């Protein structure tokens, strides 16, 4: 009886370890893309990190025991929810700031210029770096300029490789809406970027 209890405990512990390992693998696979998706949506490095951290916590807390195949749409659903929350909070904050007459200084621009002046840490050819960065900047700008829903549908489908059904779960909308958002996003991006890339 006591022996059975010890075995049960060991099996339980092994399962928890397996689950933790699987979660670790899953999160390490998605964290970079999740961070970029959040950063493209909110446009702020630290806020994006906070959003990803919150999403990781929520997934582990609420859905760790769900089958691992469900983790991807669930994780992105949480991420989308956190991004929407950020937009709501930011909208209220912006309204208050503009109403109170505060305006952000050019500190961010100055920091950006200072960072651009630093040499490339990987020692790449400056012209190649410039061309590459220019191309990436174009891409980032084009994606940032998309309406949020189109942006997210595009990133989840194209980059994360989610199916239409899983994207609909992540975005809390119908599959038809996903298709519409995605199609519009691709159309806009082709119009904006294709001429730079051909």
């Amino acid at each position, binding site marked *: 009886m006591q022996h059975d209890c010890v075995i049960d405990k060991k099996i339980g*512990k092994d399962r*928890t*370890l397996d*689950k*933790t390992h699987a*979660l*670790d693998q899953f*999160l*390490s696979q998605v*964290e*970079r*893309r999740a*961070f*970029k998706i959040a950063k493209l949506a909110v446009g702020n*490095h630290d806020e994006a*990190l906070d959003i*990803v*951290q919150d999403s*990781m*916590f929520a*997934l*582990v*807390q609420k859905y*760790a025991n769900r089958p691992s195949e469900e983790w991807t749409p669930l994780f992105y659903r949480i991420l989308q929810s956190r991004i929407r929350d950020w937009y709501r909070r930011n909208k209220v904050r912006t309204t208050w700031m503009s109403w109170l007459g505060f305006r952000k200084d050019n500190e961010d621009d100055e920091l950006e210029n200072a960072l651009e002046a630093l040499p490339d840490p990987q020692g790449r050819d400056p012209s190649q770096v410039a061309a590459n960065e220019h*191309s*990436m900047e174009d*891409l*980032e700008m084009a994606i940032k300029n998309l309406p949020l829903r189109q942006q997210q549908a595009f*990133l989840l489908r*194209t*980059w994360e490789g989610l199916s239409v059904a899983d994207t609909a779960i992540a975005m809390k909308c119908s599959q038809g809406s996903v298709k519409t958002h995605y199609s519009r996003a*691709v159309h806009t*991006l*082709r119009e904006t*970027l*294709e001429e730079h*890339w*051909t």
Partner: protein
Amino acid sequence: MSEKDFLNKLKKQLDEQSEQLDATTLSKLNRSRQAALAQASPQTSRMKQNWLPASGLAAAVLLTSVFLFRSEEIVTNSNQSMDDIEIIAASDNLDLYEQLDFYLWLLEENNSAG
């Protein structure tokens, strides 16, 4: 460029961008992941499992201790009260013993007078 090629190119660029994340960002992501996973670790699960019975036991011990301490205090208080009553009551007797010579003299005076 076909749509498929276009999308592949986009995906490749996005992958490159995410591969080029700086060390500080990667470290922060790693720390966030480890902190999140700590919730699912066996130790934390065991702590959660043990927390409820342990806290219940602690509360029960605390209540019992308080009850025992208080009841002892009540008993002690009531004993003290009884002792006090006896002392108060005994104080009359003490007066009697202290004045015993006077009462004996008074008795002798009465007897001799009578």
